[in-house]
């Protein structure tokens, strides 16, 4: 059987896909921001906190990294209201689920970054009389940020891809747009080709942008 291509319906709804794409990027940015905050605090907790904190962070990281993202999404979106917490709509449920999920990976990235900051630079900070907080703020975090930038970029790309799961709870991002166009027009091959290419192009555009950013922040040791 020959498949008859008909691109018209897909391009007629292109704005739906484009809006979905932008929403997906927005969600990924938000999740990365919240997840980074979470990961940063957890990473310092894990590398220099007291034992109970270290165990707690360890449990969070290992727990989250070994369960599917979809489960976290369902828990936040369906589970929380069932136990009496009804504050988040589907969009924010997804953002928080993704932030919690990415936070676990970011914790490990930041922890590796903290460990990679050279002891000499921290000692130089001590030697000019910076206290612990100032050393973290002026030495550790800026240096760590430069070390983890590539990993941070990869995480961002993963998060962007993971936004496709938001379609499971009807957040109107790109994959959800594909489902809707498919249902309305049944131009399935065209839709998924276009959507696949959109994801692919966006991921590579992000990767390219990040490479520029890395060069901008390179210290050229």
């Amino acid at each position, binding site marked *: *059987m020959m*498949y008859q291509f008909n691109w018209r319906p897909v391009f007629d709804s292109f704005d739906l896909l484009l809006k979905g794409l932008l929403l997906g990027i927005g969600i990924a940015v938000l999740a990365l921001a919240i997840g980074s905050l979470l990961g940063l605090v957890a990473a310092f907790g894990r590398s220099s906190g007291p034992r109970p904190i270290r165990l707690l962070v360890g449990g969070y990281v290992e*727990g989250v*990294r*070994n*369960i*599917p*993202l*979809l*489960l976290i999404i*369902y*828990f936040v979106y*369906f*589970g*929380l209201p*069932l*136990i009496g917490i009804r504050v988040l709509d589907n969009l924010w449920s997804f953002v928080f689920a993704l932030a919690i999920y990415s936070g676990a990976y970011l914790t490990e990235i930041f922890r590796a970054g903290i460990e990679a900051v050279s002891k000499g630079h921290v000692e130089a900070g001590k030697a000019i009389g910076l206290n612990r907080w100032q050393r973290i703020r002026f030495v550790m975090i800026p240096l760590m940020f430069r070390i983890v930038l590539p990993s941070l970029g990869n995480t961002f*790309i993963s998060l962007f*891809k*993971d*936004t*496709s*799961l938001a*379609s*499971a709870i009807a957040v109107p991002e790109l*994959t959800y747009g*594909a*489902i809707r166009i*498919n249902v309305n027009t*049944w131009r*399935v*091959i065209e839709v*998924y080709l276009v*959507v*696949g290419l959109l*994801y*692919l*192009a*966006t*991921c*590579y555009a992000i990767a390219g942008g990040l490479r520029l950013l890395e060069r901008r922040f390179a210290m050229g040791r």
Partner: protein
Amino acid sequence: MDVVIASGPLILRGLLITVEVSVAVLLLGTLIGLAGGLSLLYGAWPLRLIARVYVDSMRGIPQLVLIFAIFYGFPALGLQVSAIVAGILALSVFCGAHVSEVIRGGVGSIPCGQMDAAQGIGLKFVQRLRYVIFPQALGRILPAWVNTAVEVVKASSLVSLVSVVDLMMSIQQIVGRTREALLFYAVAALLYFGINYTISAIGVRLEKRYAHT
């Protein structure tokens, strides 16, 4: 407690499907990855190019989109596939790209001199891989492969979105019926964690056995 026991069979059936899907994806994906990785390493340039495009595009396309594309797309092309087969195919394609990179990285880390030496004693290509390269590369490949396995188990939950009743779907159905969200999501989390923790633990053991550096 009663609800858990009553839901036991459904959960168990779901768990079985999750394991089945994961194992199938890992087997198929590893085969694809082996072919992909060797193409990247030793293929003639057209083959290498195809493998490169395949691996790099899989990096930029969400697994869920692959699943939908195959689940809805194959029938449109006249190929009838069940939901579970569509899921397995899609995730295998994804897994294969990962494994390709894992193989390329692992084998690529072995010094060229090894291949030359193996050639020097007259081993054929497949023999060189089998007896010289792979045994050495295994220490590098295994940890990354185990990570991929964990990712595959997690990704297998996506087949629930094309209505395969895997662990995730069975839990959703039970939560919908019983409204016991906290309990059953915790059960699901524990089961997924259990599977992946076991995989990682086995991985660590194998790694120790094959680590020669």
